[in-house]
């Protein structure tokens, strides 16, 4: 069953065609990586899917339901969770309150006037923090988190809402090697265990080739290759425009 179906989406900015008819799909329980050179349209494509911008043409569907041009908020209600390239957390809340906020928002109670946020869903929040390895940081202000920790907090917030489709923009950018693979293992466990679909972009070829079931390669706004890591690595077009002679190491 295709969880996310992207069908011929396109978007121009002035005279520049950023995305020019991109189609692919993500199944439940599948990890799909989107790669390509800078300016290939990855970010635009990602934002067309997560509702940040609307496509000029084409269609995006989640679970067979047309979601083209829906706002990020509407997509959240359909079970889409996303993380940002530069992690976005609530700097003036504690780490635990960040997760509590995600849980309370998931229940649609963001406007509630009583009781204080810090008294809601504390136990559930702590379980999620434990899962991403931030249990010891719960009382700290989120602004004080190290870069990689903020990325993990963001993941805990998203997982707390029980998403069915995860969209992650460069999930491991700026993390150490060990940290990168640990984070991707954690995500992979959720994908397999709960049958969640995962679409991510990434510059680190080790992460891409090590943790994707399928890879979609963009170039100049179009898909030039899609398939298993082995097939993409061997693809001459991909080597020519993106990977170069220096093929990434085997995973």
């Amino acid at each position, binding site marked *: 069953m295709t969880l996310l179906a992207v069908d011929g989406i396109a978007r121009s900015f002035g005279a520049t065609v950023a995305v020019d008819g991109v189609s692919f799909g993500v199944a439940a329980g599948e990890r799909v990586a989107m790669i390509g050179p*800078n300016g290939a349209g990855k970010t635009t494509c990602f934002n067309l899917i997560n509702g940040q911008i609307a496509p000029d043409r084409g269609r995006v569907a989640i679970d067979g339901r047309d979601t083209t041009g829906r706002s990020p908020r509407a997509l959240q209600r359909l079970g889409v969770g996303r993380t940002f390239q530069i992690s976005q957390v609530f700097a003036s809340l504690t780490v635990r309150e960040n997760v509590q906020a995600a849980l309370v928002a998931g229940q649609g109670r963001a406007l509630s006037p009583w009781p204080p946020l810090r008294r809601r869903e504390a136990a559930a929040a702590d379980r999620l923090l434990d899962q991403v390895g931030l249990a010891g940081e719960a009382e700290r202000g989120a602004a004080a988190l190290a870069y990689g920790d903020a990325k993990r907090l963001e993941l805990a917030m998203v997982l707390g809402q029980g998403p069915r489709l995860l969209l992650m923009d460069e999930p491991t950018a700026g993390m*150490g090697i060990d940290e990168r693979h640990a984070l991707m293992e954690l995500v992979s466990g959720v994908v397999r265990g709960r049958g969640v679909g995962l679409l991510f972009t990434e510059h680190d070829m080790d992460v891409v080739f090590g943790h994707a079931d399928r890879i979609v390669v963009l170039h100049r706004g179009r898909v030039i290759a899609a398939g298993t890591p082995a097939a993409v690595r061997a693809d001459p077009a991909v080597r020519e425009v993106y990977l*170069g002679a220096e093929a990434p190491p085997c995973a």
Partner: protein
Amino acid sequence: MRLTVDAIDAYYGGARALDGVSLAAGVGEVVALLGRNGAGKSTTLKSVMGLVATRAGTIALDGVAIGGLAANARARMGIGYVPEERRIFAGLTVAENLEVGRQPPRPGAPAWTEARILALFPALAPLRHRPGERLSGGEQQMLAIARTLMGNPGLLLLDEPSEGLAPLLVAAMADAVARLKAEGLTVLLSEQNLRFAARVADRGYVLARGRVVRDGTMAELLADRDAIGRHLSIGG
């Protein structure tokens, strides 16, 4: 030494970003700062440029202390800075971007003209009247370096020059750095991509949590699997 940094501290708000960082770079040397995001690489470069205030320690260019100078004064003394996000002036044409960087030639540093720079980056030559916002990522990176060269720097600071470039363009960037070295420029660059650093740099410093935790020639650093696993991002 062209650049000597001695025990500098820097803070963002109350958070300590650099904790006694010391390093040096000789004339014509390419030196890499290695480490993951938040380790202090960019902050070190910004401290040298004068974009982040340091609270302790000294920074000297060709033996002259520059710690108290504003960024623009340091630039006129011969420090060129290419930020991680390129920061091209989007509404200005390529020629105007170069004009912003233009400074009179300085003794002791290679003198650049627009013609020489366009010969180094021939792809920019036909784009002189194109606004910066309509350049591709690779062209923007070239323009960011070209613009800095217009100031005739003796020391070039490159923040993550390979970041976001296709593996294919990373190789071209490595060639460009080699050519600048051949011109006699000193290059201090920050990198997460160890492969790229290994290719262009003579020596490296590994940073973690605002401190230098390891330094040596690139060959020595590459041999230290433990430092690589713990502190660096993309392995060799």
